[in-house]
Structures are given as C-alpha cells and as structure tokens.
C-alpha cells in the first residue's frame, strides 16, 4: 500500500489537489489493477475534499501514462474476466469525469491507451511540445478496442472524423497534431508545463469552469460530415478503408467502428459504455488479440536484448560513421536508413553514376516525407548532408563499421573484404549483407575474423524491419553486440542467427516458394494460388509474386544452393529450369509470373507463361487447404530442423519475430511457430507424410525434428 502511495502521490496546494504519477519500481506509468484501485481511492478522496481543481501529472521524464498493463490483458481468458476488468476501469473514469472539481491533465511524454482515456475523462488537457509527447489510442493494434470509455469520449472531444482516424489506425499523435485535433487545449514548452498548468489551475479555481467538451465542427464541409447524412458517408468510407487495410483479417478496428456508430451522440453515458464494453470483451477473447499481444511482446523483447548470450559482459561500441560498399538497391537503402537516424554514411562504388542512384534513392524518400509533413525541409537537408560517397577508400579510416553490399560472388566479396580491412582502422568492423553466401567462409578473408559478421537487411530496406545478425564461428561478442545495437539505432529489429544456408528467414522461405512452384507446375493457376495465400491466409504477397519481386534468376540460383546443401528435400522443380532459360527475370525486367507496368507496378498474371513453359492450361487440381498446407507446412518442417537440429536461433520467439518482420508473415497469426502450435505438430507431420507419399518424393517428408515433436504432440512454445 505504501508503494502505491508513493506511486500516486497526492498533495494539496491551496485550492488545488495535485496527483503525481510515479509508479515505483517501473520505468513507465501504467494502469495496472492496483494502480486503478488506488486511483479510485484518490479520486474519491479529492472529490470529498474542499479542493476546487484537480490536476493530474506525471513525474516520469518522458512518460505520462503508457497505457493499461498488457501483462494483465494477456492473462484474461474468459468474457467474464474481461467484463469485470473493463467495468471497473469504466467506473473509475466515470468517477473522474463526475468529480465536482475542475480536472486538468498535464501531459508530457507518451499518453497512450488507458492513459489517453484518463485524460479524456478530464475537463481540460494541457500538453508539452516535447517530441516525446504522443497521445492516442493504439488498442486496435493489439486486437482490442479502447474499453475505458475511449470509443465514447474521443469522438465527443475531437469529432467523428478525427476520432475514427485515431482509433481505427491505432496511431499516436504528436503534440502539434493533438492540439490541431482538439485533443489537447493548450500546448506549451516542456520547461514551463508545470508552471503553466498551475497558473491555469489557479485561474480555474477562481473562476470555475467545469465542462464536458463537445466538439463543434468548423467550416461547411465538416459541419455537413458531422450531420446525420454526412455521418453515414463517413462511416461507410471508414469501413471501406478499414476493410481494405486489414483485408478482413483484423476484426478490432471494425468493432471499434461499430461501437462509435452505435454510440456517437448518445446522451445516456452508461448505455454507451455498456455497448463499448460488450464489444471489448468479444475482441479480448479472440486468438487474434492474443497473437497480436504476443507480437507486441516479441518487439519489446528485442528492445531489451543485446544480441549476446547470457553472461557475456561485452559492450556494444559506439558507432558514429558507417560505410557502405556498393551503391545498389540494398546499399542505397542502408545509406538511407542510417542517415535517417543521424549516422554519417559513406558509400563507395566504382562509378559516380552508381553513387548518384543511391543519393537519389535516399533523397526521394526524404522528399516524400517532407511532402507528407513528417519532417521539414531543413531536417531533410540535414539527413542528406550525412550521405556522401566516393569511388575510392577516402574517409574509411573514420568509419566504425562497413556494410558490404556488392555483387553476390564469394571470390569478389572475399577480395573486397580483405582490401577494405586494409583501408580501415584496426578496431573497425566489417559486415556482409549477403543473403545466400557463407559468412564463415567470407570472414576468413578478413585479417581479423573476430571483427566480421553478417548483417542481412531485407528488401526494401526502408520498409522491412528485420535485420539478421549472422554470427560467424569467429565473430567476437563485441562485434555482435555492436551490430545488434547498430541495427536498433537504424530503427530495425535484429535477430542473431547462426551461419548456414539461407540463415533463418530464407531457409524457411525457400521450401515454401519451391513448393508454390511445384503447385504451379502441377496445374495451379497463378492468381488462384497467390490469392489463397494473400486473401485467405493473410500473407502480404503471394509466393509467385514474391518470387517475381526477388528475381527469378536469383530464385533459381538460391534453390540450387539449397539443393546442394540439403539434398533431395529441396528438389528443383523442372519448370524452374525452364524459367531459367526463358529470359523471365521477374519484376526487374517486367516479365515473370506477372506482367508489369513500365513503372514496375505488378499487373495481372502473364497467361502466356503456361504454354511457354510447356504446361497445360491450369486446372486447379488442389483444394485451398492442400495449397496452403503444402506451402506453410513445408516452412514449419524446415523450422523445426533449423531450430532443433542446427540451432540457427535459440527460441521460437526469434523465429516468429523474424518471419513477421522479414517476410510479413501475418501478425494476427502470431508468427510461424505460434501458427504451427495452433494447428498441432501431429496434424502437420501427418499431412506432410501423406503429401510426400502421394507423390513418392522425399521433398515433403516430415524431418526428424518435426517427427520428434509429433510423437509427443509437442508445441514450439511450451
């Protein structure tokens, strides 16, 4: 109890009661059950007091209230449990709203979810302009909806359109945008937030000013959209947009939309909250919500990791300047993300034309951000200033890390790595961005292999969050820690993997893409097959479209490497050899499974491909179930082997994070391992066994690792 007293410090100054949030033993303030219970007591006490104004502020430096306690939500199982928890929260914020005092929330730092719902129950909101100030309702990102009155109060405060924008996308607004939306009333410099809050409080204590803010539309168009007919248009547009964005796989935004539709303008608060609560409980118990919370925990896990095994004391070295060898698509992308995060980037290539392409790539991306007003033109300029290049090794002695992104050729890479090491400081690190070659073999070319590792980015670099940090047998702890930290600094999610063909992500992806090619070869129509994966399973892109994207020439090369490494279990489809000779390279030459526009936009499937490869017109001989299973189960089969035989990574957590962040594996399924667990290892092994027997091939045969799991019906997550 005394900890709670210190966590929620209540004090009185004249007519003003001040609640200071400072959750003891935690970095952030969050609304756990004990906090909420104590908050209720505080509210009741102040309500009974003579204070005229009630101020809520936080003592944490960059946090107001981060939200509810996700750990608690994770552990709620039944509708009744949800009902009880949510009703309690709704009730407490009702009490806050009903206090006789004028209430002011004074916000500096993150104010999300339950924190935002708390300030919505206050009369006034003042916030600091600090960049850490971010306010919003991200609940739908976790598969739930705002449940402590957020769906009801936010539209009332900021109007229908702004509220839908905030709740459906689950995004947080910065201080400026929050002020513009009317979510906060005043915006001040963080240095005077407390002073201004108290000044305002003293004024309100004098003059009074209890209110329930009601949004008023400004301008003709907005007034129409707020009106009865306009509202219908707004709701139907919002639903359309949400369905398009979620492809129907995420029910929470639609539930939130329904709540707002049913409750907007409702005068009976309790009835509105009852509706909100009902929908909340429905969402809370879905597997989708549990899976999304799992994904949230995976991303939190990375933030705390160092990339090193437990017990290692090695520290990441500070990285200020990074070099990039090769100004191609990957090199240009890496230069962009580095400079975007304030790192000095130096690119080396063999001619100025290549360097120019990298400059343009980066410059165009920042120009887009300026147009979208995410950054201003000065920030864009500063970022561009961080990018420089040359055709020699000038400046390489100032670099802490060099990322090699040249042609995928072992001999050339080895030569360049040795040469580069000679041009750098003795303590500098070189990493390779190879996707298919052995990091171990490459590292031997470095005079000090301890200072060499892999750093595998995914294409397009600015969008794909994953980096595989490949630990070679000789890579030092310091090297791995430095590259792990550098990945995070670049805004990426690193996963440390062991060296081996395809590392983790490509190793799992190749059997899947290969199986899709077999399905195509055996008579599946391109569009039907890809649609099964995209529309029904939830992949961001069908396997055949993905192969076009990667490049069919690259695909064939990699499958051959895998066939060599893993033997018959990665069989080369005959049709693949034919594609190799057909001149179809995929997206890059506008000819692949699909047709492409001149700008490289994917159009409809290229139906001439069947005849060209000597295939009959597609008859779609397989069910959706078989298509999905053969592809996805192949991945799971390989996953068990990578995880348990070769220990490419240590835990299923890392597999799930890598597959979601590196391939876009549907987050609502929680990741590959989590999906496998939901199906069951026995089911998977049995199905694969059957598929393998049907076509008497070792290709789909469950491997020992999967069979071992199936024997005891074991799960990846125990």
């Amino acid at each position, binding site marked *: 109890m005394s900890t709670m007293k210190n966590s929620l410090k209540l004090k009185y100054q004249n007519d003003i009661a001040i609640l200071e949030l400072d959750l003891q033993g935690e970095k952030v303030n969050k609304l756990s059950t004990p906090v909420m219970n104590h908050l209720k007591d505080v509210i009741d006490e102040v309500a009974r007091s003579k204070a005229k104004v009630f101020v809520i502020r936080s003592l944490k430096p960059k946090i107001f209230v981060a939200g509810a306690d996700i750990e608690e939500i994770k552990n709620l199982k039944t509708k009744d449990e949800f009902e009880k928890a949510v009703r309690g929260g709704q009730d407490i914020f009702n009490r806050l709203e009903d206090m006789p005092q004028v209430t002011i929330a004074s916000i500096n730092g993150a104010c999300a979810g339950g924190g935002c719902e708390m300030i919505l129950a206050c009369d006034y909101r003042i916030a600091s302009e600090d960049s850490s100030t971010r306010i919003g309702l991200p609940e739908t990102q976790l598969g739930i909806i705002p449940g402590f009155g957020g769906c009801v109060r936010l539209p009332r405060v900021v109007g229908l359109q702004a509220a839908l924008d905030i709740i459906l996308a689950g995004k947080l607004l910065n201080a400026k945008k929050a002020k513009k939306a009317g979510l906060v009333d005043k915006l001040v410099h963080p240095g005077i937030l407390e002073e201004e809050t108290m000044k305002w409080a003293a004024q309100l204590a004098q003059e009074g000013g209890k209110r329930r803010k009601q949004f008023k539309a400004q301008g003709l168009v907005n007034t129409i959209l707020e009106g009865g007919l306009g509202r219908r248009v707004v709701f139907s547009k919002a639903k359309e947009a949400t369905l398009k964005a979620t492809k129907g796989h995420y029910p929470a935004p639609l539930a939130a939309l329904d709540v707002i539709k049913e409750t907007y303008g409702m005068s009976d608060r309790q009835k509105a909250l009852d509706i909100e609560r009902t929908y909340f409980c429905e969402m809370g118990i879905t597997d989708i919500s549990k899976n999304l919370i799992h994904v949230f925990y995976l991303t939190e896990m990375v933030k705390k990791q160092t990339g090193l095994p437990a017990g290692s004391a090695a520290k990441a070295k500070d990285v200020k300047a990074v070099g990039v060898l090769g100004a191609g698509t990957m090199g240009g992308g890496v230069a962009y993300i580095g400079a975007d995060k304030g790192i*000095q980037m*130096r690119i080396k290539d063999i001619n*100025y*034309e290549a*360097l*120019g*392409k990298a*400059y*343009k790539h980066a*410059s*165009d991306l920042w*120009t887009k951000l300026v147009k979208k007003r995410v950054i201003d033109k000065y920030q864009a*300029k*500063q970022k*561009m*200033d*961080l990018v*420089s*290049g*040359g055709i020699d090794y*000038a*400046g*390489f*002695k*100032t670099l802490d890390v060099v990322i090699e992104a040249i042609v995928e050729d072992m001999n050339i890479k080895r030569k360049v790595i040795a040469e580069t090491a000679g041009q750098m400081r003795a303590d500098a690190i070189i990493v390779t961005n190879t996707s298919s070659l052995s990091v171990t073999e490459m590292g031997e070319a470095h005079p000090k292999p301890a200072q060499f590792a892999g750093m595998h980015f995914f294409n397009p670099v600015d969008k794909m969050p994953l980096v595989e940090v490949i630990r070679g047998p000789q890579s030092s702890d310091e090297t791995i820690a430095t590259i792990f930290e550098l990945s995070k600094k670049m805004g990426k999610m690193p996963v440390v993997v062991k060296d081996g063909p395809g590392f983790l992500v490509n190793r799992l992806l190749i059997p899947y893409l290969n199986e899709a090619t077999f399905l195509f070869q055996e008579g599946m129509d391109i569009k039907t097959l890809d649609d099964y994966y995209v529309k029904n399973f939830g992949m961001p892109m069908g396997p055949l479209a993905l192969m076009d994207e990667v490049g069919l020439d690259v695909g064939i090369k990699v499958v051959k490497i895998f066939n060599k490494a893993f033997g018959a279990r990665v069989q080369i489809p005959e049709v693949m050899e034919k594609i190799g000779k057909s001149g179809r390279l995929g997206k890059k030459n506008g000819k692949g499974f699909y047709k492409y526009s001149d700008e490289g936009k994917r159009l409809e499937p290229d139906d001439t491909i069947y005849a060209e490869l000597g295939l009959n017109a597609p008859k779609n001989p397989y069910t959706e179930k078989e298509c999905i299973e053969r592809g996805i189960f192949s991945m799971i089969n390989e996953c068990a082997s990578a995880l348990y035989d070769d220990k490419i990574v240590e835990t299923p957590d890392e597999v799930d994070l890598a597959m979601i962040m590196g391939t876009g594996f549907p987050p609502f399924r929680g990741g590959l391992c989590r999906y496998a667990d939901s199906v069951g290892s026995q089911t998977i092994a049995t199905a694969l066994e059957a598929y393998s027997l049907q076509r008497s091939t070792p290709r789909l045969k469950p491997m020992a690792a999967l069979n071992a799991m199936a024997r005891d019906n074991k799960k990846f997550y125990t």
Partner: protein
Amino acid sequence: MSTASKAKSSRDVVIVEGFRTPFVKSGDKFSQVHPADLGKTALKAVLAKTNLNTDEIDEVIIGNTGNPPDAVNISRVVALGAGVPQKTSAYTVHRNCASALESISQGFEKIRGGTMEVIIAGGTENMTQMPVLMPQKFQKIFMDLPRAKGPAQALPLLWKLFKTDVKQIKAMLTGDMRNELMPTAAVMQGLTDPFVGINMGQTAEILAKEWGLSRQTQDEFALRSHKLASAAKEKLREEIAPVALGPDYKETIIDDIGPRENQTYEALAKLKPFFDKETGSITAGNSCPITDGAAMILMMSREKAESLGYKPLARILSYGFAGLEPERMGLGPVYSTPLALKRAGLSLKDMGLVELNEAFAAQVLSCQKALDSDEFAKNKLGLSAKVGELRSEIVNVNGGAIALGHPVGATGTRITLTLMKEMRRRNTQFGLATLCIGGGQGGSIIIENEN
C-alpha cells in the same frame, strides 16, 4: 634553387590537403546548387581524404561575397553540413575577390600565433544565385502591406503596387536602364566599384590603354589560358571533388566547365569589346566568366600535423595585402607581392611557379609590365628598383580564370591549391599566388613545397 629553405619550426603553418569543386560558368550546371552545398562538397572531400577526426578542428573560416540571405554566415552552414562538430566555431570573411585568401591569411595568423592548431580555410560562391534586387519603391509597399488594417488601407497599397508594376514593365520593354524602377542584379552591382562608380571591365580598359596592351596580345593570352587549362584536365582532377547534381543525381560534374579545347584565336578576335564599344579591347573572351564554385584547404601547425601523423604538402611562408586606386584595381598584385616577398625574405626570382589570377587578360599583362618596371616601382611602390621579371613560362601553367572561371569568394583558395599541387608535380621550392581585388587592393601568398 637560389635561396635555401628557412629552418623548420614547430609553429610553421602547413597545408595538409585541399579540394575544390569543378568551376562552372554561371547559369549552367550549378544553377540549382546552393553555395553552401558547393562548400560542403569540397570540405567533405578534404575531410574524407585526410580521414581527419573532426573533433580536432578549431575553426572554419570561409570566404564568400554573395552573402546568400538564407545562409548569411555561410561558413557555419558549410561546417555543420560537412560534419564539423557543433562545438567548432565558424565564420565568413569578405574581401571581394580575395575573400578566400583572406580566410587563409586569418587561419595563418591564428595558427602561427599559437591560438589555434587546426583550421579549415576556403571559400564558396554561387554567382548564379546572387539575388535580383527590387527597387526601394517596391520595398516600401511590401513593408506597408502586411501592416495595412482592413481592405480600406490595403486596397490603395495594392493599387499603388499595380501602378508601379506597370511602370516597371514599361521601363523594361523600352530598355530604359536608368529608370529607378529597374530591378538590379546583385552580381552586376557587386562588379561595379562603389567608390568610383565604374565596373571591373572598365578598370581593365584603363589598364589596357595605359600599358599599351593590344587586342591581339590580350586575345593570345586568353587563348593560352584555354589551351593550358584543357591540357591540364587530368591534372586538375586531382584537386577536384565531384559534385552530384540533385534532386535526381543523374549527373555528376567532375571537370571544370569553362576551358574550351577547340578555342581559336580567330573566334576570340571576332568578339566585340564589351565595356568600351568604340575604342575598347576588353571582350567577354579575354575576361574571366562569372562562375560558381568552392575550394577548401586544411591548415595545421607543423607540430599538430606531425602528432596526427600527416605529411604536409606545403608550408605557408607569408601573405600580404595592399591598396591602390580603385580604378586600377587590376594592378593590385604588383602592390601586395613585394610585401609578401619581403615578409618571406625572398625575391620574385625565387618563385618557381606563380598563379596570378586572370580577372582580365589585360590586367595580368599589365601586372607583368608593372612588376618589371623600375619607374613604376619608384613612383608607385616606393621601391628603389623593380620587383622583378615575371616569366610567362611559370605563370598560370594550368590555365587561369579566363578559362576556368572566377567564383569571386572562392578563387583565393583555388589558386593557392592549384599552385601547391603543381609545385609538388614539378618539385618547385617556392611559389606565389596573387590576385587583384575589386575596390583597389591586391593580395599575395607565398608557399614552400614540403616535398
């Protein structure tokens, strides 16, 4: 070598490295490149080549005359953008055509005196981007407009603006250059002497006539500049930092755009005199073009360079600035050079290589004559005998500003850099870089090869 090198001292000021952008005629490829970005490119090349730990830099001093309104202390903009730490001081200097020699001389004093150890000096100029100035009458309206309260006050002002606009267009259509409503190009105003009111070309006309320089000798000199600069293309690349042209970065400029390999004497001879149409001899062909470009060098004390493991390229021995009649500004080098020579304890014949900036062919040629004249030395310089003969074989051996161009605020560093690199190629011991300065001054610097 006739004169032995002075003993080396730990407080010697040395040049460690230098780079410049290509020089590009105004209105051409650098039209859209901000002078700060030109400066950054040159400075980044210096920092990259030397792998310098930027924490070591004490100060950045950059010459500039255009004073772009969006980067008034352009030195600071260049420094921050090139990766010089925020803690490091940076300021801009302006001495017209010698701004980038002024920056070096200030760095020299600060290092020699022991105040500082590592200084970036240079200059940058985008003459294309110098503004066009609106006449005072417009300025008044533009200032009053935002203060107008309501349409009752604003409308009369807008009507006045409209009327003034119409008058201005009329003046432009009739070519009434003297009309007070004509907008002025800042670059043109800058090239006109504010004290005596004649432009730089006219000062060259005065010299041509007073020193009896024929049109032919001038055109021959201009031709020489183009031929030498064209022949030196490969050599000059060693001092050039390529500029990638945004926003599409399809093109990277790696050479000066100016030297014309196929320039003929006949073509030069055909040009009409520009400044004195009747009796003049100064043409666009025997003058330097208006140009965009930047140049930067890294200077250190000898002891600092040694402790950081650098092998200096040259040591700066002395510099000198002097004044003369504004209308004869082209003779500035004749006045400043004896000062610099005296401070270095050397004479003109010790100089193995000379860069004398080519503002105008007539101006270079009259400098040569004046330097070689006892009478001029006695009457004008207060010296007992002539400064000395300046042999053409050692002057501007890689061409000069007539071919390369003269981005006013950057040239001082450019000629020092070009001189230093050529001295190393030829193993020359002493070299002089000098230039005339609009407003009636001259500037000179003497460096010694560290080979």
